[in-house]
């Protein structure tokens, strides 16, 4: 604590970041859940990015001569349609590949926004307490006495369907998850000696919150973001299923699931393929969150 001696504004010594980065990455990768689940999600991102290059067909191309073809290996399967085709003769694999795009966009943006709102309010509530905490906590309570699925459907019905609405709805609903945890974490951190020391030195309160407390909350926050991405993927699926997400010409997993459910007796594979993708993705985001929490928490690591 040699910094504590000087009352001058702190000047961060310029450090070379690469060794620390590499060290942290090593710690992260030593956790099998992070490496495995993170790898799958990276692969998914790659698929989304390269969708036009790797998808075998145009996802919107209808061919009624080749409609309702089963996946490869089943009776009546056609070469070139690995996962079969739907009722309109569109290639299921290609739709699945293009569907990754909406899924990941929603996951990243919605989780990021929810984290931003929830963390800001949670930090303020946990650090300033009093009236700020009272009103924020009350708001969270009202928000949470609502079935989230119903609320999201309601919200999207109000603000109109589409990707932006879906993202907005998820952020508006799920910020409470961040707010509650971050508030509790902030309150716990505020009791620590390093905060007391920083206050004794006379740093401004907001400075302590952002530069001292926030970095210490990061591991929890990262884990939460990963979990939230999994939730966002599901909510997008649900909203597409109900028909409130993007228009039907944009392939999404939820939209495919809705079609698959409708024609479940004729073309079960149209439901099975996106459902399996959804299952794997949610599981991976979840495991990644768990792994991050473990890898970044020095107490749990021991």
């Amino acid at each position, binding site marked *: 604590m040699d910094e504590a001696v000087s009352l001058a504004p702190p000047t961060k010594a310029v450090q070379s970041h690469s060794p620390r980065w590499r060290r942290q990455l090593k710690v992260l990768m030593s956790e099998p859940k992070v490496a495995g689940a993170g790898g799958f999600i990276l692969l998914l991102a790659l698929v989304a990015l390269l969708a036009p290059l790797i998808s075998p067909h145009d996802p919107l191309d209808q061919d009624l001569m080749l409609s309702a073809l089963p996946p490869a290996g089943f009776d009546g399967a056609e070469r070139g349609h690995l996962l079969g085709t739907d009722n309109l003769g569109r290639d299921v694999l290609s739709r699945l590949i293009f569907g990754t795009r909406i899924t990941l966009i929603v996951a990243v943006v919605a989780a990021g926004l929810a984290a931003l709102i929830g963390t800001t309010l949670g930090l303020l509530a946990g650090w300033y307490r009093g009236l700020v905490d009272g009103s924020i906590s*009350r708001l969270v*309570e*009202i928000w949470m*006495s*609502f*079935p*989230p*699925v*119903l609320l999201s*459907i*309601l*919200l999207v*019905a*109000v603000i*109109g369907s589409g990707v932006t609405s879906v993202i907005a709805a998820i952020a508006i609903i799920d910020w409470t998850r961040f707010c509650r945890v971050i508030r509790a974490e902030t309150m716990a951190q505020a009791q620590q000696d390093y905060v007391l020391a920083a206050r004794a030195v006379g740093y401004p309160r907001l400075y302590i919150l952002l530069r001292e407390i926030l970095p210490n909350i990061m591991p929890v926050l990262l884990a939460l973001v990963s979990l939230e991405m*999994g*939730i966002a993927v*599901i909510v997008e*699926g*649900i909203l597409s*299923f*109900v*028909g*409130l997400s993007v228009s039907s010409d944009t392939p999404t997993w939820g939209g495919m*699931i809705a079609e698959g*459910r409708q024609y*479940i*007796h004729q073309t*079960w594979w149209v*439901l*099975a393929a996106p*459902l399996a993708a*959804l*299952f794997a993705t*949610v*599981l991976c985001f*979840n*495991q990644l969150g*768990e792994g991050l929490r473990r890898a970044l928490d020095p107490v749990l690591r021991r």
Partner: protein
Amino acid sequence: MIAMALLKRLTTTAGTLAGVAVVVFVLLRIVPGDPVAMMISPGASASDIAVLRAHYGLDGSLLSQFGLWLQSIFHGDLGVSISLRRNVLEVLLERLPATLELCIAALEFAVLFGGTVAVVGTIWRNSWVGELIDAVNGLLLAVPDFVWALAFALFFGVLWPVLPLSGRLDPSAGSGMVTPFFWAESLLRLRFDVFADLSRHLVMPVLALSLPLAAVIARVLKDALIEAMAQDYVLLAQLKGMSRLRLVLQEALSNAIGPTLALTGVQFTFLVGGTVITERIFAYPGIGNMAIDAVINRDLPLIQGLVLVFAVIFIAVNMLVDLLQLVFNPRLRHG
């Protein structure tokens, strides 16, 4: 003491409920679509529209509409559904029992299944059984009801069709039930054919709804049990030669049940919210399924009624959990 604690709780929840009412009301009034526009026939005149608007109380200011709504709620009048053209309260009362039966069946299964898993996991916590339970439980915790429901529909409804895919009761089973609580009534009247058919329809939605809750119960209860097992009084009982099963059930459980109960209450409200999508997937005729149609049709009176019902259920569950905690944890009674 209990009365005071409950009274305090009641006033807080009343405030929350009022907050919910305001939020929903305002939210629905800023809907861009005009609900009246959705129900008029193309040739309707301006005066027809005005009459219709007045009929549904949509012509006043926002504040007066809200006042009117609150007033009628206290008279038990929830208005007339725009899309169904029927009394909202009537529709809700007709549909609610199906949802309640589904939720209660799911809760029962979740508590039984989750509790059993927790006890088994505690007894064999240091063997491969415990590790297997933890791994499976991690999977159950990660995957939501929406995915389970569809997976069950796919596997047990289509690929290996052993269970009915949709509905509550097969028309051929013939109901003849007089109350809307078919499941309870068929059991009481010993109509086992109807009871069996209802149960078969319930299996998939109940499993889908209860698996995530069961996983939470299993995890929290197991952690609490393991902690309780390390206490001195349990050790003493162990030294007296009590069997491991009795040790868990008789000694540890009573101390571990408190935290589990609180979380089960919160999670149960999620389960109730989950009925919206699960009922949709299985075309189950409850209020959740109806909620989606109500939103899509912008049926304001029906949506308001539904949200109110959900809010009341949530608050009732929370109060019940508080009460149960007081029963199970004597320490809370003096505080």
